[in-house]
């Protein structure tokens, strides 16, 4: 009779590091790590040596020296004696501004075009196809430069608004002036404003804005509570109470009260001397960038939306109709939740693309983070290593934040599967 014993313990041989799959994984990883560390070390060593040869010590102290240049479009107060870091922050805010505006308009336009491309109206569908193909197949830089050229060439100069025989007039009840230097829109002013609060001595934040956001957030919260109560009542009794006026009122009324309390009025742009004064001034570079990025990205979003809608089978609509749902409810309860699941992941990457493409602002002279930190600051201080690395880090942070937020939203709308 034989007994089962363990196989004889194999002695470890050096060749097993290559031939034995148990050890090979470890060998490969150690080799890969060594190669990677060697590469990094080599790069750092080269950099240190090159910088030493140039007589530059890597340091970020230059960020606190006065910038010495002007920025023509700022969201916060800035003058040329402020440090480079503040100039970079102004640029960052400009990047975020155009990215936000662009994402909003591109989404609206893209959804509209995507839906219209599926329209059973032959002419509309073809027109939208032409739009999508035209914008997708020509570089975005080209559209940005083109939009800038259109704005400069085709809009009237401020002098055209002057005098009795003015060839141009302001739009929307004399409140918006569209000129070839930019667009002047009314600015919100508060006669009994709360003033500003200083954060860390560097930045001022308007208390009016904070109050506005707090009241808006509170209103939305109350409105959602009302909706939740209505849901509960519908579950219990089968009758859904009418709540839309309550919900609207919960958001709008407190805001109106706040605005009256703060003495809200609009500051209109007026023609004084050679140019318009007052109002909020949006330079052509901002408008051109915004327009071009929205139109370009909308073409891509339209394709995503179309794919998302096509991915929902017709049976879903028919089944929902068979359950007795009305068309609006079919869209909001059956089609949209499923289409969103398909649309949102590519939409995230379109938002990321738009934000990254906003760095092309430098081509039309809009001062975003690329124009300030990696443009003029780099040229003035000669700190190419620090500025470019810092700029990349900032873009990386923005990208990761956007994808984190959008992934969180995606995980909320995602249908839970088995």
């Amino acid at each position, binding site marked *: 009779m034989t007994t089962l014993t363990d196989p004889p313990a194999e002695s470890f041989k050096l060749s097993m590091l290559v031939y034995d799959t148990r050890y090979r994984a470890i060998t*490969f990883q150690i080799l890969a790590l060594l190669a990677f560390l060697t590469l990094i070390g080599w790069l750092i060593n080269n950099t240190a040596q090159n910088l030493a040869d140039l007589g530059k010590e890597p340091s970020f102290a230059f960020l606190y020296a006065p910038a010495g240049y002007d920025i023509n479009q700022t969201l916060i107060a800035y003058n040329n004696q402020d440090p480079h870091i503040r100039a970079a922050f102004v640029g960052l805010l400009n990047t975020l501004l155009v990215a936000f505006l662009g994402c909003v308009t591109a989404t609206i336009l893209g959804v509209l075009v995507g839906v219209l491309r599926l329209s059973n*109206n032959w*002419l509309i569908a073809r*027109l939208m196809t032409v739009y999508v193909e*035209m914008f997708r*197949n020509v570089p975005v*830089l080209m559209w940005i430069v083109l939009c800038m*050229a259109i704005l400069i060439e085709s809009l009237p100069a401020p002098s055209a608004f002057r005098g009795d025989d003015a060839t141009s007039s302001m739009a929307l009840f004399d409140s918006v002036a569209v000129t070839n230097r930019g667009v002047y829109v009314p600015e919100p002013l508060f006669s009994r404003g709360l003033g500003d609060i200083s954060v860390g001595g560097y930045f001022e934040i308007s208390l009016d804005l904070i109050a506005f956001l707090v009241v808006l957030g509170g209103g939305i919260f109350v409105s959602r509570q009302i909706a939740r109560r209505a849901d509960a009542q519908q579950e219990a009794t089968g009758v859904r109470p009418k709540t839309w006026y309550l919900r609207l009122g919960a958001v709008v009324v407190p805001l109106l009260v706040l605005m009256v309390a703060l003495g809200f009025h609009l500051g209109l742009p007026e023609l004084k001397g050679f140019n318009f004064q007052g109002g909020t001034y949006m330079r052509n570079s901002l408008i051109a960038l915004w327009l071009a990025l929205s139109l370009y990205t909308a073409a891509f979003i339209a394709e995503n939306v179309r794919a998302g809608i096509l991915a929902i089978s017709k049976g879903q609509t028919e089944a929902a109709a068979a359950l007795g749902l009305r068309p609006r409810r079919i869209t909001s309860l059956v089609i949209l939740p499923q289409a969103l699941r398909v649309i949102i992941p590519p939409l995230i990457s379109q938002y990321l693309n738009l934000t990254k493409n906003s760095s092309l602002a430098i081509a039309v002279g809009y001062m975003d983070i690329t124009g300030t930190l990696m443009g003029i600051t780099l040229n003035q201080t000669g700190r190419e290593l620090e500025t470019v690395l810092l700029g990349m880090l900032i873009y990386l942070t923005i990208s990761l934040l956007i994808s984190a937020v959008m992934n969180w939203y995606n995980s909320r709308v995602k249908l839970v599967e088995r």
Partner: protein
Amino acid sequence: MSDTHAETVAFVRETMLPQKAPPASTVGPLGWAKANLFSSYVNGALTILSAAFIVFVLYEILPWLISPTWEGTSLTNCRELLAAAGDDRGACWGVIRERWQQLMFGFYPRTEYWRPVLTFIFLLVAIAPILFAQFVPAKVAYFSALFPFIAVWLLWGGTIWGPVLALLGFVVGFVVFRYASRAIAPALALAAGVVAAIIWWSVITPFVEPDLSRILPIGIRSVQSREFGGFMLSITIGVTAIMCSLPIGILLALGRQSDLPLVKSICVGFIEFIRGVPLITLLFVASVLLNIFLPPGTNFDIILRVMIMVTLFAAAYMAEVIRGGLAALPKGQYEGADSLGLDYWQAQRLIIMPQALKISIPGIVSTFIGVFKDTTLVSIISMFDPIGLSNAIRADTAWNGVYWELFIFIGFVFFVFCFSMSRYSMYLERKLNTGHR
């Protein structure tokens, strides 16, 4: 009681009537228009609005496009020609006639234009066996392998021995790999081949090349990188990035899907970093930082630096596209390959990659299109791609103020390239669709 209606019905028709034609409103152009253009009030209104829009745009643009200014020699001259023809406005096509060569070739020497043209024709021949495998004899693929060396020699010129010796390096590496793989493990043999090639390039080539060039001075006029420009530059950078990014992208995607945690985290870090920053910052790295990262005294060509960064950029995007293809493949394919006893690389080569790449074709082609469009960004680091050149042309006093004509021309050429690429991807999808559903 009988079921017949003989008593109640006075007349029963015994023959079928011939079918009547459908109502005029549902057939023919009228019926088509009713179904597709005026199916409801809203649709009708939309149709009229968009027709009005199209008519308006054509009315505004067509007379402008068709303007008799082909012979114009400057903007003022164009205006005179227009005034003579009785038009008050119109395009000035003279700028395209006078400068189209510059838009195509940049500042490339005029006598050498045949070289980029020949390279482009060779490019078409070289990609033919890849694009249209069933119509082109497979032997053309040998030419495709030689093409990169021919292209570099034709475009940059100089002595022929540089590209030849570089090619021989690959041959040496391959021969070493073939012989070594009979004796040792494939991975070690590959390493041996790579080492042999590197020794060839770094030790033997610099030693042999000057002598060879002296003994057999075969060469053509050498052209500097800063003379490159226009669509030639875009295509050179674009094609290089596209060709190199696919293999790197595949390796990165495999690395990201790998079981080895260290390899995986290096790949994830690289991909996410590159995808998180705009291309323009990478081009800044190429133009101002790459020389700082490399050993002191290294100063290599700006076009090569830009190519490296654009390739890395494209590779990260490619990796994500291919990862999607790998993830979409049913798990049974991986298990099937394992059960056949294939090792990792055999499974990837024979089972996984052919299917994963097929699934990712649309994504791969749209990455290609994106890379080609993004080559225009080099104008920001003051290289003369078509957009950079259009600024240079406007700097000439004769053409100061010419926007539309140049933009329309450049946009049109880009459109032709990108649109044909996307149509090709649709064709390929149809061809490779083996009908799983």
